[in-house]
């Protein structure tokens, strides 16, 4: 007989964390859609526009990876604050990838919404 595991009361929260992790790459690419931003600005953009609060140390390695993959480009720019800032922007393949990912996200979200429609409604 299969032993049943106890139901995890935090299961939904853990699932949400995984969902947010999975969407981080799309969110970072989308944050750069309108123009160039530096690391801290990207973090603020994610926080303010997407409710995606990420650990600060996770965005920088991701940006470096996206650069190796040719999806973003970067440049150091001197600032008034006294230290240079590294600005990122989307390359042409990066814009293409962001569009593709957004299309997949919307399609998936729409089809899932149909499936979720009955949830929460009273059973007749």
């Amino acid at each position, binding site marked *: 007989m299969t032993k049943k595991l106890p139901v995890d009361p935090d299961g939904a929260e853990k699932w949400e964390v995984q969902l947010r992790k999975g969407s981080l790459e799309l969110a970072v690419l989308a944050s750069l859609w309108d123009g160039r931003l530096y690391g*801290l600005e990207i973090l603020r953009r994610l926080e303010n526009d997407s409710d995606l609060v990420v650990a600060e140390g996770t965005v920088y*390695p991701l940006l470096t990876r996206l650069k190796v993959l040719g999806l973003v480009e970067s440049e150091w720019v001197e600032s008034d604050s006294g230290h240079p800032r590294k600005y990122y922007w989307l390359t042409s393949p990066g814009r293409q990838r962001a569009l593709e990912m957004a299309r997949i996200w919307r399609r998936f979200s729409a089809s899932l919404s149909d499936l979720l429609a009955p949830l929460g409604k009273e059973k007749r």
Partner: protein
Amino acid sequence: MTISADSQLAIDVYLKVLRKRLRGLSEQVSNEVVKEIHSHILEKAALEGEVTPDSVASALTDLGSPEELASQYVTDDLLARAQVTPSPWLVLQSLFRWAGISIVGFSVLAFSALGYFLAGSFALCAMLKPIHPQTAGLWLLPSPENDYSVSLRLGFASPPAHGRELLGWWIVPIGLAFAMGLVLLTFHFGLWSVRKFWRPARGA
């Protein structure tokens, strides 16, 4: 911007540990990373206006430990390079790193190790055949339960009693071709697994 000696020391220590843990990245990338994180710390610490020991400490805490940060950089770098310019050495490096953090990674590494070991054995057997012509090769051996087993022998021991060699000199071309095929297959299996299943862990 004025930074107290204590805060500067805290930043220096953080960046020193980070740089030390970025082993495996090229010096150019490592320098870029340290410069960017340094810039981030100063930027973050000055968000409220004045840079204070508390604001510096808070900026460092928000970044997470330098060890964890470096680990994410190294993982992301391996993953990206394995996707862009795959090489057997890079895939192996990725697999070792993946195996340390995930059961799936460990399983893929175990299968890959088995693949490379088998390939190495066949290649070695093929190369040793001219040196041990009577004993090296693929042998069919009778076992006590009236059954048979196949054994790949390098030829250092005496010929097995009642055994029969299966391929003869054909072990040389077949063994080498099989070894090369197995190396290619194992390499592509590792690369495919890394690309398909390995996702760097991220805090969100």
